[in-house]
């Protein structure tokens, strides 16, 4: 600890945003090492600002630290400048709470929520001085485990992890800790862990006829732990506000959406519980904003009641409520008008597809009328900026569907002209497109992604269909989406590619300024793996899929 502290003093003045490497925030948990039996490093393979905004991290941090003889610390991926300093100064990856190197911890747990952070996982293991591959680790190395939404297809990362948690982690993590305490060696621990529901231990898993692994869920959210008294960062993070989680799962089941299909069944918290939790979260944190989170907030049955309860308490205290993930309908916008006192930069809707035909096909149940009606209410209320998100390359998409995106944006513009109170202020309508990525466990899991060149052609078509200056068009570059598609439907071979890419210098792939497409393509070539085989190939219905043994509909 002293060693790392001294080295930090020497390097922190040279790096950007040094406060993310110091720990010491209000409500971080510090324990006495002598009283602790199991030390856990909770690793988030992205920056502090993103990791600290993650609700899962806060839940597991709270649960683990509520066990007396367990100490869970946080570890984030250092930004490239910090990484260089750490390597130059021979400084290993450390826990923010203790400044101890994490290679001496008992359990190193990664949260895998985004495929493009896989190279950061390897980089963090390397910085920690922990052998990357499970097979190369010995009795003295930590047990390296993973959880998070990427574990619905664990195969690409199986070589690197001793164990995966599939589904929601808050119950199974306690069982894992108990199993860890009661076993003396790693093999014994893994053996007993493999019997827990929701746990996948690759080394003990028959390769020929793999046992099904059933995802874990929390049945009663009202009774489950929620972090109302949690760390308040001393430096700005992405979602810098108190959080409430209304429900898990989603009733909508849009065909492209993994979260909507893996989060089943829908489980809600009661408005009473949420009101109490909301008050406590504000009082304990000192935040002046409370965000109501879920996959689709408009679908929460008691939203009106909850907002009324919270407003009554929040308004006199100058606490703002924010409602992300609202549906595009007038009910939602009226509610937002009532609730959200601080004008946010703009409204965001995700129709995903331009034509009604394609929206029906992908099961995105929103009509043009809904959307325009929502916009009408918003424009009447004085909003003057709308962002519309779409995917290009959805299965069955035709050029007509793409032109319909432009039409829809023009209709929104017309709605503004008809309903705004102040035409002089102008309006900004932004269309944003990304390339459709087929995901495991969705109805589109066997579909092909369109090639990069085809995406670019469709971008051009859309761009040339837009006739108004009030409409801005942004598109995500397709390269990241292509790699994400190859990784998310990958098998064990993809693990070699990830390691090869990392060796070529890839890290921070989710940041477009650091993402190197060339490095990925080189790595695929070096490993003689064809990315098209994973990304742009349609699987026929008899082909078995790498994630077939993960069972979603068990809960």
């Amino acid at each position, binding site marked *: 600890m002293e060693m790392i502290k001294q080295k930090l003093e*020497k390097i*922190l*003045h040279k790096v950007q945003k*040094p*406060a993310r*490497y*110091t*720990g*010491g*925030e*209000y409500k*971080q948990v510090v324990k006495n090492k002598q009283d602790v039996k199991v030390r856990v490093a909770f690793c988030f393979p992205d920056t502090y600002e993103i990791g600290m905004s993650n609700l899962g991290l806060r839940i597991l941090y709270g649960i683990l630290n509520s066990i007396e003889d367990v100490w869970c610390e946080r570890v984030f991926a250092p930004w490239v400048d910090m990484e260089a300093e750490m390597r130059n100064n021979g400084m290993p990856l450390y826990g923010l709470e203790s400044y101890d190197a994490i290679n001496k911890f008992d359990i190193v747990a990664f949260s895998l929520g985004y495929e493009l952070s896989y190279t950061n996982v390897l980089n963090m293991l390397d910085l920690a001085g922990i052998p990357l591959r499970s097979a190369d680790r010995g009795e003295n190395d930590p047990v390296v485990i993973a959880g998070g939404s990427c574990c619905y297809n664990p195969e690409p990362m199986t070589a690197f992890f001793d164990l995966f948690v599939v589904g929601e982690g808050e119950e199974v993590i306690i069982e894992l800790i108990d199993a860890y305490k009661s076993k003396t060696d790693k093999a014994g621990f893994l053996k007993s862990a493999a019997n827990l529901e929701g746990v996948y231990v690759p080394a003990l898993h028959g390769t020929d006829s793999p046992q099904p692994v059933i995802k874990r869920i929390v049945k009663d959210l009202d009774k489950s732990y929620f972090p109302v008294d949690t760390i*308040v960062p*001393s*430096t*700005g993070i992405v979602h*810098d506000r108190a959080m409430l989680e209304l429900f898990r799962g989603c009733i909508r089941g849009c065909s492209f959406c993994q979260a909507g299909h893996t989060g089943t069944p829908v489980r809600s918290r009661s408005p009473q519980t949420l009101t109490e939790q909301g008050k406590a979260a504000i*009082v*304990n*944190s*000192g*935040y*002046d904003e409370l965000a109501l989170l879920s996959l689709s907030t408009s679908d929460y049955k008691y939203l009106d009641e909850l907002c009324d309860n919270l407003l009554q308490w929040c308004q006199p205290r*100058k606490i703002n409520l924010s409602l992300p993930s609202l549906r595009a309908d007038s009910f939602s916008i009226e509610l937002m008008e009532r609730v959200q006192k*601080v004008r946010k930069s703009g409204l965001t809707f995700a129709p995903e597809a331009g034509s009604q035909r394609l929206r029906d096909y992908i099961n995105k149940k929103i009509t043009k009328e809904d959307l325009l009606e929502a916009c009408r209410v918003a424009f009447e209320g004085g909003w003057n900026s709308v962002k519309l998100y779409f995917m290009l390359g959805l299965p069955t998409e035709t050029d007509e569907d793409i032109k319909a995106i432009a039409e829809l944006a023009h209709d929104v513009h017309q709605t503004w002209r008809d309903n705004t109170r*102040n035409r*002089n*202020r*102008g309006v900004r309508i932004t269309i944003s497109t990304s390339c459709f990525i087929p995901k495991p466990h969705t109805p589109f899991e066997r579909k092909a992604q369109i090639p990069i060149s085809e995406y670019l052609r469709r971008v051009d078509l859309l761009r040339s269909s837009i006739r108004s200056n009030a409409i801005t068009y942004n598109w995500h570059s397709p390269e990241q989406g292509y790699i994400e598609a190859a990784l998310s439907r990958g098998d064990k071979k993809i693990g070699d590619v990830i390691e090869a890419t990392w060796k070529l210098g890839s890290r921070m792939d989710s940041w477009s300024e650091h993402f190197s497409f060339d490095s990925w393509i080189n790595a695929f070539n070096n490993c003689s793996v064809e990315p098209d085989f994973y990304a742009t190939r349609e699987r026929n219905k008899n082909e078995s899929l790498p994630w077939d043994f993960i069972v979603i509909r068990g809960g």
Partner: protein
Amino acid sequence: MKACRGTLLLYEGVDCNCSEGIRKTFNGFSQHTNFAVNTSFHYSASALAGTIKSFPDALWTVTKIWMEYNMQKIRLRYAKTDKAMYISHLDLMATMQRAFLRAGIKLKYSEGFNPHPYMSVALPLSVGNESLCELMDIAVEDDALTDIKKIKLPEGIEVLEAYKPVRKFNEITWAEITGSMYYETKISDMLIETLAKCYSRQNIVVSKRTKRGNKDLDIAPYIKNVSFDVTDIITMNAIISAQNPTISTDDIMNALNDENKPEYIRIKRIEIYDSNMVLFK
């Protein structure tokens, strides 16, 4: 005379259409302008907010307006050391605001469109420096002095004292500091001698970065009582000008020749004084 301070977000090309005094003040401002109006007009905060609001809708957003008169203020003295030295000024403001709210302190908010609490730091500290004598004024709804033990902060920040302010921040003149100087190479007696000589020169001209390019400044009149302690690092003790001009870590560094420059200097403010070297409160 009534003072009003705040932050105003004006868009380019604003055409003010209000009373002369205000117009003059606001003319030529671009985005995120901090303003301080001294006005003999009888503007209340809301009247001023109203005046500004009468600008064409699209052209402005007032983010903060405070009227300084008849506000209950509390002055806090706090230390910012160790891990907390890396918290930037902006982040510190948010951190403090949250700590006050947690402690149940009723902050007074600005009027206008998007209310902000009144919080003002005497001498913002740069990232990487420490202090035992930071001062912050806050405006509160009720008269009572706060129980400072209730204010729970991140590691390294500690509120030491709370009192009703008497003097204004602009009376602060001198700061007593220590500067830890870190060298990669071994520290020699020669080096200490060279350092001592350097800071006792008649003229110490350094190039200071200003908004309009670099400017040479003789900092000799603004740095005094220099001495050194030597352990495994060199610690400089000095009294430096706290504002107008502010002597920064860079200035202290740039007073040295390249070969005598340390890797870095960490300044720690120990105490602040007025122009007569009377402790500032």
